[in-house]
């Protein structure tokens, strides 16, 4: 067995186990920390697929950004707001139906897709191509996304601001 396969199975095991912990753990912080391992191992899978840019972006955005915000949010807000973070199971039957539906669709898609198997290409410089495409062909979506983020930033700053009553 080539070493990449061993790495793949190790990473897959980490992803599956930590994802199960994320879903079934009653402690929200534990779930958040397990999510760290899930996201990190997913970026390992991207590395095995030779998608280096997306692997590093995965770490940068999900691990370095979103996960930290998530943990911060959970830690800071549990005692401030009146809403209690619930970790018990609600709506058991609809959620079972929904999950079974999704997994059926996924299994169907996995087995019906013709997977495009290719020989692995040597590491080529993708970041230049991505940059050029973002600033030429896909300029409009790129700009719209950045304006959207700016709006979200200003909006959240507005909400967080102390309102003066005078």
């Amino acid at each position, binding site marked *: 067995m080539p*070493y990449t396969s*061993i*790495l793949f199975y190790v990473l897959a095991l980490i992803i599956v186990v930590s994802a199960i912990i994320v879903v079934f753990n009653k402690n929200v*912080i*534990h779930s958040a*920390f397990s999510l*760290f391992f899930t996201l*990190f191992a997913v970026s390992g899978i991207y590395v095995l697929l030779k998608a*280096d*840019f997306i692997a*590093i*972006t995965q*770490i*940068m955005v999900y*691990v*370095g950004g979103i*996960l*930290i915000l998530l*943990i*911060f949010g959970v*830690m800071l807000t549990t005692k401030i707001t009146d809403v209690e973070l619930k970790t018990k199971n609600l709506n058991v039957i609809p959620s079972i139906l929904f999950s079974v539906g999704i997994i059926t669709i996924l299994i169907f898609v996995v087995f019906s897709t013709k997977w495009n198997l290719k020989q692995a290409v040597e*590491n080529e*410089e*993708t*970041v230049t191509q991505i940059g050029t495409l973002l600033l030429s062909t896909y300029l409009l979506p790129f700009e719209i996304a950045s304006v959207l983020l700016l709006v979200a930033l200003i909006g959240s700053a507005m909400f967080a601001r102390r309102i003066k009553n005078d």
Partner: protein
Amino acid sequence: MENIFTQWFGDNLLTYILIPVPIIAYVSVFALYAVLAERKISAWMQNRIGPNRTDKFGLLQTILDAVKLMQKELILPSRRDNLYFRMAPYIVFTAAFMGYAVLPFSSVFIGVDLNLGLFYFFAITSIGVVGVLMAGWASNNKYSLFGGMRTVAQIVSYEIPTALSAIVVVMLAGTLSMQKFALIQSGGIFNWYIFGGPGSPIKIIIIPIMVVSAVLLFLSTLAETNRTPFDLTEADSELVAGVHIEYSGMMFAMFFFAEYAQMFAVSGIVTTLFLGGWQSPFGELIPFLNTPVFQVFWFLAKGLSLVFVQIWLRWTLPRVRIDQLMTMCWKFFIPIALVNLFLIGLYIIFA
């Protein structure tokens, strides 16, 4: 290094396990002697003698300290969160160590020369934050938790000026590979990016911008490593010892080790981006000084000088307050970095 090792041992898992061995050996030796250097330098600055009991100049001091720490009993808080409490120090150290993968020690010795080396470095060092938060939370101690929260707030904020001032060099060099940054700056001290990089004499107009960017990068990486004057995470007058309070023995040593590993890693980044990496300051005048062995010497000399400056600053300046820290980042560093970025953009278009 990847190429050499695959030639020697073949393309198998063992090779990839062996590649980090020289680097971790270097990091260990560096950390041991950086601790000693820190204690000696602080002693000289404060008119003391410093460690001098072991060996002639106290050279064995940190080795013996490490042996002592290994033998110490691990005192664990009874209401800890066992798994994450034990895991956190190793995540913090791993994050600091993974950054070394892309540090170009010379034209031959680099863990792996990624196309996205710099991006990788900034991404991978940011996962240390998760470890710190884990440690702070799992200790079940309010000072630890506050320390962890502060660290995270500080590191996340200072990542922005770090990245923005590094992008200035990325724009000029047109690459993200650490090895290429060093290669481009060949030909003597005046081709280093702190002096505007290689190019026509008109580059003289960007020298002030580059110097400001280099200083910004150095200061914001200093804040990311949580060292004084930015060591609010372990501000002992307010937080006892931050996230390390409940850690003892070897687990504490891992945090310590991570801090020193990170000190050299960020110095290596500043060196590679602005100070020519492993290039000799004499360029091609003395070709003998540009062989791979001497390149290691130059890289270490530059990196260790920056480490010295970090130690120097630590024992000179008092700690800033948390509001001053955040003001400095968001109201001074980020705007200055953005203006730099804009000016360099104009320079690239018109020159």
